[in-house]
């Protein structure tokens, strides 16, 4: 770094630094901290849900409260925790990885972030208002709100949720546009598209997906709002509207959304596997094409979420075969992850453990996903705990494990300090054991016929729920260890080198740790 750069290294002090932040690293930290905070709030909600499900009978919650809690859990985890955390990673890392001085649109970037806390507050306001006798609580209609008439019946919580969706959509759009503009315009000389790190590729594709589907979701939410308050009848069957139309619109958003959550993780896993195997990335081109293929297919399969809603036979057959096709590009990714570690010289630091844990658990989520599109079998699986188990293997086993791997991998880069490796490994093993203890029993409860979203269950499901709840409590508790590890690392971890990990590749590791406030003001030359 030259003299000229360091003289600019004086952001405003105190809170103003964060409120007026336009620096991509500051915003990255803000996004990630917000995602982390929401991870624990969303987790707290589900602890209450699992406590209610520990034993048959209603012990703690009314069914209405129960429905609010799992709805909030899902909305917060998907839109509040995983997506903002992944956005934080892209903010911090994309400019470093492509040799750009900052994101292309720094002020839009600031706006995009500062919408989020307000959106979260908006979502939670009705939940707390109910304790003062105002309104009927937060939205209780599930995170995709796809039971249309139930949405129309709901109280103010639904309106708050709709406005939250608008705000979150705005935030995601600004973030996505920023990624596209940055990646397409600000790469260092010599950094051609096919030389970009896979994480950047994955985020570029994610950004395109967001730009395509967020307007659909916002439009559906707006139509729901006008149905509720302004006398339109898009979805209201009693007045000639179509309740299934809302399901189509929402799942047209909702299925790509699954990949929006997963693609950033798929992008960063090869980095970590390559680093700790001390090998170059395996099958780079194949992975880029596979990510594009998954992006393309994800727009063509939405109705596999509606296979029991009474689609015509032709549509059922089409959505079954189209969904099965996704297993092919996905298997390209898994094959490349295997290639990445094959004949490497592996070491097993915490990020590597989480990356391998990601592969093992996401693999299970992906394989169970191969069964689900079979329409005849789906009739049995749909809306049962089988689905709950399956998508937690993808969202937690894939999304969260991926984010954890990324956090441990780049934390020394962000903070300039190493974390406690022993505690990190402990955190990994606790997470693996209790994650499986939580979600394996749910699969069997589902096979046995337990539907989702129920506040109380028949006695035949008792044992599975008992184990699952215990697992969930321990899983929740063991995540507190992560807070301790991060705080300990930031406070007094030993100094990290610029390279951090022995085998680490990429432009971000050519910088000191933590990187200076402004980086790559003179773009590096990439060979």
């Amino acid at each position, binding site marked *: 770094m030259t003299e000229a750069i360091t003289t600019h290294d004086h952001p405003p002090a105190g809170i103003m630094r964060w409120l007026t932040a336009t620096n991509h690293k500051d915003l990255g930290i803000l996004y990630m901290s917000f995602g982390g905070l929401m991870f624990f709030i969303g987790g707290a909600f589900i602890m209450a849900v699992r406590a209610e499900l520990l034993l*048959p009978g209603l012990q703690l919650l009314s069914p209405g409260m129960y429905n609010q809690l799992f709805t909030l859990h899902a909305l917060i985890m998907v839109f509040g925790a995983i997506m903002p955390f992944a956005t934080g990673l892209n903010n911090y890392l994309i400019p470093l990885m492509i040799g750009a001085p900052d994101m292309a649109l720094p002020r839009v970037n600031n706006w995009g972030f500062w919408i989020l806390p307000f959106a979260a507050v908006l979502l939670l306001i009705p939940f707390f208002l109910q304790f003062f006798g105002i309104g009927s*609580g937060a939205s*209780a209609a599930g995170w995709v709100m796809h039971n249309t008439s139930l949405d129309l019946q709901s109280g103010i919580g639904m309106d708050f949720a709709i406005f939250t969706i608008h705000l979150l959509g705005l935030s995601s759009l600004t973030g996505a546009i920023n990624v596209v503009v940055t990646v397409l315009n600000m790469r260092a000389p010599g950094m051609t598209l096919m030389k970009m790190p896979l994480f950047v590729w994955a985020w570029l594709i994610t950004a395109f997906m967001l730009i395509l589907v967020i307007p659909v979701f916002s439009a559906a939410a707006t139509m729901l709002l006008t149905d509720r308050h302004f006398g339109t009848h898009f979805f209201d069957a009693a007045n000639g509207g179509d309740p299934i139309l809302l399901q189509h619109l929402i799942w047209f958003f909702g299925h790509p959304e699954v990949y929006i959550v997963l693609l950033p993780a798929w992008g960063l896993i090869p980095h970590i596997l390559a680093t700790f195997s001390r090998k170059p990335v395996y099958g780079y081109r194949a992975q880029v094409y596979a990510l594009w293929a998954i992006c393309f297919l994800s727009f063509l399969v939405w109705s596999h979420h509606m296979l029991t809603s*009474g689609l015509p*036979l032709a549509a059922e057959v089409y959505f079954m075969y189209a969904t099965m096709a996704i297993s092919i590009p996905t298997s390209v990714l898994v094959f490349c992850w*295997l290639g990445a570690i094959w004949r490497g010289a592996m070491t*097993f630091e915490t990020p590597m453990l989480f990356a391998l844990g990601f592969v093992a658990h996401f693999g299970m989520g992906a394989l169970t996903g191969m069964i689900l599109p079979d329409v005849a079998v789906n009739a049995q699986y749909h809306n049962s705990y089988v689905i709950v188990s399956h998508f937690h293997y993808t969202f937690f086993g894939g999304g969260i494990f991926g984010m954890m791997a990324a956090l441990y991998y780049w934390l020394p880069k962000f903070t300039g300090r190493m974390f406690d490796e022993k505690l990190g490994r402990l955190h990994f093993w606790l997470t693996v054991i209790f994650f*499986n203890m939580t979600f394996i029993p749910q699969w069997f409860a589902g096979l*046995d016929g337990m539907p989702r979203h129920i506040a109380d269950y028949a006695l035949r499901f008792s044992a599975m729920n008992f184990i699952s709840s215990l697992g969930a409590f321990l899983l929740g508790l063991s995540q507190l260890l992560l807070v301790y590890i991060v705080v300990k690392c930031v406070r007094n971890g030993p100094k990290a080198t610029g390279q951090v990990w022995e085998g680490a590749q990429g432009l971000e590791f050519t910088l000191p740790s933590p990187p200076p406030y402004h980086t790559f003001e003179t773009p590096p030359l990439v060979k």
Partner: protein
Amino acid sequence: MKLIDAAIHDESVIKKRSIRLFCCSRRDGAASFRETGPIRKQLPLWFGMVFLLFVSGLACAQSIWDFQEPVTPVARDSITASVDFMRIIMGIYAAVFAIFAYSIFKHRKSSGARPGAFTGPGTKWQWALAISPFLLLIYIDYIWMGIPAFHAIAQMEDTRTAAEMVVKVTASQWKWQYEYPEENIKFVSTIATTQDQIHNRAAKGEHYLQEVDNPLILPTNKKIRILLTSTDVIHSWWVPSFGVKRDAVPGYLREMWVNIEKPGIYRGQCAQLCGSGHAFMPIVVEAMAEPQFKEWLAQKKAQGAAAESAAGKAWSREELMAKGDEIYNRICIACHQAGGAGLPGAFPALAGSKIVNGPFLDKDGRLIKDGHLDRVMNGKAGTAMQAFKNTFSDVEIAAIVTYERNSFGNHMGDMVQPAQVKALR
């Protein structure tokens, strides 16, 4: 299956079952232990352990935990497909992660491995290895499992060919109405589990939350076409033993079919989040041989005729109050709560309510719009308060309105006769 069927309502049994799960996992885990030698401080060993625990957990599914007993052709097909698919994915998982495990053990820095520098398949052999998984997947997806799946869907969706009987199911929050259009019989089926049992004030019965007052009665060995619709929100009719699940969508008539091959009682419940009573909307089907079914039909028809004549006679206040009390505690209580207290913000109270304590007929004997009787008969659009004239008999409507006007501290002193309701329909 027996293990699952046994009622489990005390913790000791729960413990026994959970121990069984762990035993089953430990057995396989221990086996893997011996193969890989004594425990060293090697994390990948643990990694493999957890993986085996996971696989063995799923393997148990084949023997202990699985679908409920299938009793229709569709259910048998889907359990076969599910088990086959499960074996295939477990096979793929085991194969892929055996390679991962091998690599994790062999290619470690600590055992002196030197990293390769390849970035893709190099030799012909490697290319073949890289392509083969996709060919295998295409074969599994579109031929091995794909073709039987197509036939299974075609069979599942063929609701009309050779259908011998029609039953119409109308869902509403939180009950099912069953109708036999050819026999002119219809009745409502609601949960029989008491609030005391749900709130842990009374012991839970064997079929806790999966018991109803009036089960759906169906004949065995007959192709029965089931039509589904809903009066309010989307519900979903699911009996696991039948292998079919279909949403009941307001404004649409959906259909499916069952052919029950074995007499018995089959239990299921609503599978679509439909509001605060979602967990309390069970389905019980009693399948019986044709002669018994015919007998039941005749009995039900006789009851219907009796009810018809009952609507004609004048009812005393005590009779109406007693019947109203029973209906309130079975149905209305789900929203309006015990003592008519309601749930602030969600469901209005009936105690002291302006509607309940107001007039319900005008001076010409017509319904007053939004009066008490109008609200019960025609419901309120956009809320969980539905038009009960569709599901309640004249006697039931008269009883519930009379009951509400003279309970929870409401002292209207008046009453409604079934004959009045009949005239107002």
